[in-house]
């Protein structure tokens, strides 16, 4: 194709583009951005394992099982975060099918790890104490996870998520897993009910929050279209 065959830019489009023609820095690869966001959680969980292991205190959940679970959750969270940021870049999206599989896999992993902890170290607690401890756990996981989710959503929206609901849901699940990877080391409750309702539930809630945040961004895009 020669220059003569090529279409000139319409005047209206040229004028619109010229209004904002500042140089831009291309986004870093999704893996690098995901690592930067997930790294603090990894440092916290590693430090927690090292400090508490050196103190020789009764470890409770912070056993080898707890540390291993944290590592698996962190890896799953990092993977989902990477997928969320990748999904947000046009032409790099993983697609709805793979996103659903990854999302289900990540959330299921937390469920299975919760059952594993319960089987190895679990002890029940019922009544009003269970509710108070559980709501405290969910609150703290939210306090750790929501900033992760907010930053991940911001990073995703800096690109152009074609399926923002999926990007948001993946980022939400990632935030839940990263939050749980650190907090469950400090949580003394290992009974199945507590793990399922408050820890697993917090991750599911953050997944929903992420998907809803994605839907809002989609609506904003439609309005702006």
């Amino acid at each position, binding site marked *: 194709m020669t220059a003569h065959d090529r279409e000139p830019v319409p005047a209206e*489009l040229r004028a619109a*583009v010229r209004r904002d023609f500042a140089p831009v820095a*291309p986004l870093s*690869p999704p893996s690098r951005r995901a690592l930067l966001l997930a790294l603090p959680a990894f440092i916290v969980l590693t430090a927690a394992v090292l400090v508490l292991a050196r103190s020789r205190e009764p470890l409770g959940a912070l056993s080898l099982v707890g540390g291993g679970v944290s590592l698996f959750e962190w890896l799953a969270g990092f993977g989902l975060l990477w997928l969320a940021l990748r999904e947000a870049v046009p032409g790099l999206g993983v697609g709805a*099918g793979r996103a659903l599989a990854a999302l289900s896999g990540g959330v299921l992993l937390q469920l299975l790890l919760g059952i594993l902890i319960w089987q190895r170290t679990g002890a029940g607690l019922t009544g009003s104490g269970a509710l108070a401890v559980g709501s405290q756990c969910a609150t703290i996981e939210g306090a750790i996870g929501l900033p992760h989710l907010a930053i991940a959503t911001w990073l995703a929206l800096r690109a152009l998520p074609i399926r923002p609901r999926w990007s948001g849901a993946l980022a939400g699940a990632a935030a839940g897993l990263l939050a749980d990877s650190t907090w469950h080391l400090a949580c003394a409750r290992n009974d199945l009910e507590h793990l399922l309702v408050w820890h697993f539930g917090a991750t599911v809630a953050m997944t929903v929050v992420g998907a809803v945040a994605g839907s809002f961004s989609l609506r904003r895009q*439609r309005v702006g279209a």
Partner: protein
Amino acid sequence: MSSDVDEAPRDDLPDLMVRYQAGDEAAFEEIYGRLARSVRGYLRTLTPPGADVEDLVQNTFLQIHRSRQSHLPGEPVRPWAFAIARHVGLMARRTSGRRARNEVQPFDELPEVPTLSRAAGALDRISLGRALGTLAKPGREAVWLHHVEGFSFREIAAVQGISETAAKVRAHRAIVALRGELKEAAG
């Protein structure tokens, strides 16, 4: 516009994109010149009859401009640009509330179609254009991107957000349906 840019092959698009991100307006014009026609044809496969495709082409390039930082250095440009075009086309369709799936486009709405090699000579362009218009949208997209734009199935998968296997299946099914339509047309 410099002559080296004029003669640049299609593979230079990632380099042009780097210049565009650095604020080079000539690079944007070059990218527009190379992609506009293809994007227009692709948008016609996505949108219902009567849609203002020229407006969508401009919207696509506006979106490309607004999200130009989202192109990662070294990645191919066309799947990125076509994914944005697809997004714009689908948003327009949703906004208008019309369902394009399975709609038959009148022939005069369809762009110039380079005929598929197997169909070429057997049937005329009118029959092929009508037959393409009868295909379900995802299959029509896949056929268009592969046979007209020369996308690999991997690139089609990236644009449509599906697996490479699914892209192959869509294109295969669409080609089978297209053959059936063409046989009927041939009578």
